[in-house]
């Protein structure tokens, strides 16, 4: 958190995809426990982490997101019994590919957060924001056309 306040110029934009059954509920629990995390984390609710298409992640980067994090139920706990196992393979391969093309591996992350892990959700988001702040702006995957000229 300290670094974030020190670097006032750069507030990274974080897009977090959260599955409805575990991680979104975990985020709610973080909220009802008043466990703060930076406001630049914005959550998109999806039914299951396996609903997240690689296209969504690339699109978020295109639109200027500096980090994308995907949260789902712990493996074995998926509401749909196996969705997150598929997420795990898909995202492993996608993130590995992004890194292969030279994208910093810290920019993408998958975390398993249960509905009971409000504290974890908040900790993960704080840590992710810290990591991305240290990493700086996403320049390798943004779409310059989408940037408004100053």
């Amino acid at each position, binding site marked *: 958190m300290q670094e974030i306040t020190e670097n006032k110029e750069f507030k990274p934009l974080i897009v977090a995809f959260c599955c409805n059954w575990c991680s979104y509920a975990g985020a709610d629990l973080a909220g009802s426990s008043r466990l703060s995390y930076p406001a630049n984390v914005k959550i998109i609710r999806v039914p299951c982490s396996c609903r997240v298409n690689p296209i969504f992640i690339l699109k978020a980067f295109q*639109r*200027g997101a500096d980090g994308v994090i995907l949260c789902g139920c712990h493996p074995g706990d998926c509401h749909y019994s196996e969705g997150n196992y598929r997420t795990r393979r898909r995202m492993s391969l996608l993130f590995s590919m992004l890194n292969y093309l030279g994208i910093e591996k810290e920019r993408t992350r998958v975390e398993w957060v249960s509905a009971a892990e409000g504290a974890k959700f908040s900790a993960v988001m704080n840590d992710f924001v810290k990591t991305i702040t240290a990493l700086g702006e996403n320049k390798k995957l943004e779409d310059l*056309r*989408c*940037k*408004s000229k100053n």
Partner: protein
Amino acid sequence: MYKIKLSDLDKLYKAISEDYPLYLPIKKAGEVNYGLYGEDEEVSLTTLKTVKSPKDAFFPQSEDLVNFKVDGNKIEVIDVRKEEQPFVVMGVRACDFKAFDVLDRVFLVDPLDTFYQNKRNAAIVVTNACTEPEDSCFCKVFGIDASDPSGDITTFIIGENLFWRANTEKGNALTEKVKGLFTETDDKIVAEEQKAIREKINSLPNVNLDLTPFKDEMLDIFNSEKWGKLSEACLGCGACTFVCPTCQCFDIRELTKNDGTVSRFRCWDSCMYSDFTKTAGGQPRTTQMQRYRQRFMHKLVYYPENNEGVYSCVGCGRCVKSCPMHLNIVKVIKAFDKGGKDE
């Protein structure tokens, strides 16, 4: 006529680029394309065929047309056109130069394409004669002399020297600026080389293609059964159209920027694509055969019909080299040749 040692060309590029943005063939990751000169770039002026043609200089693959912003019921239109500063395109081959004429006949007639026009007017074109034409070249078929391209300035690479000849006022002006790097010479060596080039061209395999059937038998050709066979391997990709110096079709699309501004831009389209000509009313060309036929009928029949017999193919041979399945305009012309093989 001037000349400069090939080993001194870097000085020439640098000198030109001090006054103008300079576009010329640059090698990047193993392939040569037109690009903006910079000291770190690897210039490859001797490359006969860049992958993409220099038409990008006037008609870029993607180009912003207009921006607009919507606020409630108000629409604010933002003109994004800039005043084009003069720039230099160097190394243009005879066929590609001829292709500018083909594009002019599309973009510079009413309604005038100001985006194209501004760039065209701002450009100083330095052509380069083809001292080593290849098997895939057939510009001669379209009456192009690869040994003597025009343009504002014509250059010839002969032996260890590049010969430089200004043809126009613009050319003279540029020459004045860089004259210090040249030594003056007569055109004897150039004339000899031109003769040699013409001989080489005459020995190429595809320089005697017969185009008369496309003038005389337009309907027969359109209805010919041969198109089916000719196009059956076509994948419907756009490689041939995107490397073509004369293809001028584009699509207009929009992109919403992060601040809500909508950017309307055009980008190259290809008549080989299945959604080309698709409208709300349907798709008039439903098969790849129809699309394939359209492309060549346009190059060899429709365009000349509307443009005093000027073909919209310049024989650069790029499509011959780039088609994944080795289909090309040469095969089409030969198929309809009277003495051609019956298919």
